[in-house]
């Protein structure tokens, strides 16, 4: 028998203090791990969402270029049919040519000029005139949608146009063609340095290529030393020599470039691999082809008004560090855009088009509305199929089915189906709903149109059914048996008890499970791709049998395209999808809280 004083001695002993210290340390560690895990998850979330939002910000606005139009009735017609048939594309192109005649002569620059404006702009002009035929014969300004590359350039995606200090007086030697511009001061020093820097970069690249050749040569020589036959040894040595020659060639080029770069002053040529430089003087624009400390030689893109010399305030130069070959907007287009911008003809506005138009091959015209409507139809079909079947199945399994091996087996399988990869449902849907299969000579299935929301909805309904059944069963089980007893005691049948009493009380839980299942279905991509909802759809689907696509599949398609503008739009579509999912899950949480204790 341990006495009470012995017991208090145990509690106060050093061993007890040690246990206390260790327990406290363990609790602190657990807290620390928990906080660390939370912070890691939070950091991952911030990085993911942040990078997506940053990329999406490039698609939030779009740019327009405003030009004045005067449409004569002969060009365009006066009745709606005539206006519809008129060649607005040609009208827009002609307008561009009249605005920039100097850039319209050469076919290459002419094409670049046309590419400043989006292909869809002429359609919008046509729509405008159709809506207001009184515009024919009058002069009006119309904003033309800029092409995706110009739009990205204006957002700074290809680098920014720099100007720099100038303090000299610039005198041109002509107004058109190839001219020289001479300054009284060494204004172009920094430009020259920049060009020389690019030369050094090029030299670096050549050195790296030379190094690779050297490696090749060394390898061949080794192989030659280990060769078995004389003929082979000769061949390998010849190859080694070829490598050596190539390496020397690269080295020589690099040497030349470095020598040029090292030389102070001098003249450097500008081309597609060097920064682009433009001089704005006397109302004209010159693209530089040679630059030295105090002089520029170049070709006139927009004719100068005079050969008068210009004081420092009256001329500027723009430099674009990214060489023409490394960007998708050409020098000609930069000149056009900057000229228009100086006149105030360039405007930006919120990209409503993204939310109201359907898919397009041109990124500046593409929108998610078609995919959003497709998602709506598909989810509608999914809900209408999965909800009634799921809830009724849950009621039957919980309230009416006998407890035996068969129902246990069914329950296990329903739980398993909830974990099946969704693409398997896509294969199933493709086989049975869309293509049809043959069993013992009988054709089964194959009655649904490919790419239609009805097929997609049916596949997603199969996928969501286990989730709904499991959530509904849990909700039904949570209804207290006293309610059932009360109903039965009053003389309600089992069916009446289930539908009048149990189901209304279980409904909040059922709805929560359904909303979560729907949110999952909204984000499904793989099964819908399997049944073909990945086609290029340009029309808004009007019903459940029209061809359609859904939001996540749209994201998947756009992410495949090379245009940089599609990258921004993919991210913006992802943001929209995330917003929908967050809203649906928030609704589920709200419902759960609101109906938590109603009895």
């Amino acid at each position, binding site marked *: 028998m341990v006495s009470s004083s012995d017991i208090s001695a145990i509690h106060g002993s050093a061993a007890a203090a040690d246990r206390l210290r260790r327990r406290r340390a363990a609790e602190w560690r657990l807290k620390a791990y928990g906080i660390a895990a939370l912070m890691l998850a939070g950091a991952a979330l911030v990085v993911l969402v942040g990078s997506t939002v940053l990329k999406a910000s490039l698609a939030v606005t779009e740019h327009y270029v405003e030009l004045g139009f005067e449409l004569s009735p002969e060009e365009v017609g006066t009745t709606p049919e005539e206006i519809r048939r008129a060649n607005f594309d040609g009208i827009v192109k002609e307008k561009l040519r009249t605005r920039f005649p100097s850039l319209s002569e050469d076919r290459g620059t002419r094409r670049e000029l046309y590419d400043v404006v989006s292909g869809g702009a002429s359609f919008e002009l046509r729509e405008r005139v159709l809506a207001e035929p009184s515009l024919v014969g009058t002069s009006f300004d119309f904003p033309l949608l800029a092409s995706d590359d110009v739009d990205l350039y204006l957002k700074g995606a290809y680098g920014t146009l720099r100007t720099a200090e100038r303090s000299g007086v610039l005198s041109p030697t002509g107004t058109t063609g190839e001219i020289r511009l001479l300054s009284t001061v060494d204004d172009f020093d920094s430009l020259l340095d920049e060009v020389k820097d690019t030369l050094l970069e090029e030299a670096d690249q050549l050195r790296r290529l030379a190094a690779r050749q050297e490696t090749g040569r060394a390898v061949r020589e080794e192989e030659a030393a280990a060769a078995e036959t004389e003929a082979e040894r000769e061949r390998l040595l010849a190859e080694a020599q070829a490598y050596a020659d190539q390496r020397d060639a690269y080295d020589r080029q690099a040497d030349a470039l470095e020598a040029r770069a090292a030389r102070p002053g001098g003249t450097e040529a500008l081309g597609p691999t060097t920064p682009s430089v433009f001089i704005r003087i006397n109302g004209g624009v010159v693209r530089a082809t040679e630059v030295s400390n105090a002089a520029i030689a170049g070709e006139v893109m927009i004719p100068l008004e005079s050969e008068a010399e210009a004081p420092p305030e009256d001329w500027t130069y723009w430099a674009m560090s990214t060489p023409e070959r490394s960007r998708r907007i050409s020098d000609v287009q930069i000149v056009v855009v900057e000229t228009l911008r100086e006149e105030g003809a360039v405007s930006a506005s919120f990209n409503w088009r993204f939310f109201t138009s359907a898919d397009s091959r041109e990124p500046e015209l593409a929108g998610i509305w078609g995919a959003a409507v497709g998602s709506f139809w598909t989810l509608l079909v999914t809900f209408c199929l999965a909800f009634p079947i799921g809830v009724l199945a849950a009621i039957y399994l919980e309230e009416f089915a*006998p*407890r035996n091996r068969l129902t246990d087996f069914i329950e296990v399988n329903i739980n398993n189906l909830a974990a099946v990869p969704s693409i398997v449902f896509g294969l199933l849907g493709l086989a049975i709903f869309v293509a049809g299969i043959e069993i013992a000579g009988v054709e089964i299935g194959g009655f649904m149109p490919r790419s239609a929301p009805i097929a997609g909805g049916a596949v997603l309904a199969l996928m969501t059914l286990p989730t709904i059944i499991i959530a509904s069963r849990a909700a039904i089980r949570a209804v207290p048996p*006293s*309610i*059932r*007893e*009360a*109903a*039965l*005691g*009053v*003389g*309600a*049948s089992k069916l*009446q008890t289930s539908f*009048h*009493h149990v189901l209304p*009380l279980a409904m909040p839980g059922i709805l929560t499970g359904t909303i979560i299942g729907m949110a999952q279905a909204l984000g499904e991509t793989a099964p819908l791709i399997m049944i073909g909802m990945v086609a290029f759809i340009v029309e808004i689907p009007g019903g459940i049998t029209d061809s359609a696509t859904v939001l996540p599949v749209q994201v998947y398609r756009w992410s495949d395209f090379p245009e940089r503008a599609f990258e921004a739009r993919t991210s913006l579509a992802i943001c929209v999808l995330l917003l929908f999912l967050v809203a649906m899950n928030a609704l589920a949480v709200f419902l759960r809280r609101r109906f938590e204790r*109603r*009895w």
Partner: protein
Amino acid sequence: MTNQRLTDATVDSREIKFETRHVDVFYGDTQAIKDVSVDILDNTVTAFIGPSGCGKSTFLRCLNRMNDTIDICRVSGDLLLDGQDVYAKSVDPVQLRARVGMVFQKPNPFPKSIYDNVAYGPRIHGLVGNKADLDAVVEQSLRKAAIWNEVKDRLDQPGTGLSGGQQQRLCIARAIATAPEVLLMDEPCSALDPIATAQVEELIDELRESYSVVIVTHSMQQAARVSQKTAFFHLGTMVEYDDTTKIFTNPTDQRTQDYITGRFG
């Protein structure tokens, strides 16, 4: 034994409402009720008393076939309501439960309005044709349950918003709304405070005029106050069934004597 209020003892002129003979109830392999035979008389309050687990609630639930909801439960023997076997194939348990109402231990009003609670039974059994008749039935039931004055101004409020005693009276109103002949009460006051208990006991005495009431109770005092006939159950058998006064003053069986004097319980 305080507050002993012995009610009228003479019941021999009453008819037999519910006749049970040689009833056995099995839960799987365990026998819960062994050879019980009891007569429930009309317009009488019959009390079932006994220690915990002796089978009184089980037997009570046989009378309105509530044990049917339990898969492993098996009932054999004769249970005759007005001479008709309630376990016959031709008898629908759902309709039976409209004739034999039940009130449970813990008040369990539906989470609907007070009106809908009472109106539910008549509605599903098609007992009334129109709204005016339904209103009349609801009012009558609530009056009979002695709760009309308290709730007549808030019939559309949820039934779960009432106090414990009021909820139980609402459940009683709900049970009598289907015009049953027998009213079964499974420890109706055990979840209530003494004031509410007194109210419900007074109500039971009034209900005796219209229905046969069978009440299972843990409290011997309650049985003595409220009932005219008492049956004492012990370990699944019915030990003694007689007038209440006789059971409590001069029981025949020694076990009954031991129970009421508190030797076990």
